[in-house]
């Protein structure tokens, strides 16, 4: 009992915290990952709107 009791106690005291930390870490990772995409998309859009087709040029074969 001592050991089982100890294990349950240990889970409550440390295991729960470990799970919580994992969830937080996962959320940060996901936020960072999607944030990276969002930023890239915005920068791409801005660059496109700044470009204006030039005059006086030709294609070279």
């Amino acid at each position, binding site marked *: 009992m001592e050991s089982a009791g100890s294990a349950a106690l240990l889970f409550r005291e440390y295991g729960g915290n470990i799970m919580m930390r994992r969830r937080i870490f996962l959320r940060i990772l996901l936020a960072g990952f999607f944030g990276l995409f969002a930023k890239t998309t915005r920068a791409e859009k801005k660059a496109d709107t700044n*470009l*204006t*087709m*030039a*005059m006086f*040029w030709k*294609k070279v074969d």
Partner: protein
Amino acid sequence: MAKTVQCELCPNGCVLEEGRRSRCRTRMNKDGSLYSLVYGKPCAVHVDPIEKKPFFHFLPGTTAFSIATAGCVLSCKFCQNWQISQASPEDTDTYDMPPDKVVRQAIAHKCRSVTYTYTEPTVFYEYMYDTAVLAKKQGIKNTMHSCGYINEKPLRHLSNYLDAADIDLKAFTEDFYDRICGGSLKPVLNALVTLKQEGVWLEITNLVISTLNDDMKNIREMSRWIVKNLGSDVPLHFSRFFPHYKLTNLPPTPLETLTDARKTAMDAGLKFVYIGNIRHEAENTFCPQCRKLLIERIGYVVKQNHIANGKCRFCGTAISGIWG
């Protein structure tokens, strides 16, 4: 499918593979098409006296709404605006100012003209052209200060909307253009002739740099070429050099060199020769017939103007320029 393009705007004729930029840094090949990177994005916006350009025979005493973007087709070692002319567009702070906003701002600031200046307007050709079209519709005149390093076809196209041009004729030798500017003289002379043919009011600026382009023999040759090909009425401005950029080892141009250059040009037949970047009586306009003072200037300020309806108020001689 080939995605290489060639820019035909200036004599550099940059051949650009996919993703590459032109020498002027402002044009880029994207997916096999050439794009301007500076349209509507000026890095310099000012309201200046027109005399600062310098234009001395074009609406004296008025102000010009002046804009520039980053970039230049040349790489002059003496450039006075090298911080923006030799920079890439992304390395400068820019305003969001499309052509219609430029014209609105020019009207709001009571400017009679929009000037494309500071760096080299050829590098923002599309922006300049669209702005010039809108400005003309609103009765605002268009001027540019350029090195004249532009091909004939785009220059003629632009000339339909251009009222005046001040062209930097940096020297009269191919060697100077090659060694000091990274360009060549011939296209600049062609541009001057084209502008004259198109009826654009023309003034010429020559920055005199000690030991590099202050040979009076070359100045005489240049002045004779101007008289023969452009006419004796074209104003020529000899501008004083101050150490800048890569030529900090050279001294400011002595006043004596500038006055010698002026005398040489006038002896060659030019009627209106000015000295700039220094306080001197040669900042003023004199009647070529009766020699009386017509426009007195102190720096960029017009103190007196005795030109009425394009004529000398004292003797009635017609004075070339755009006066009203």
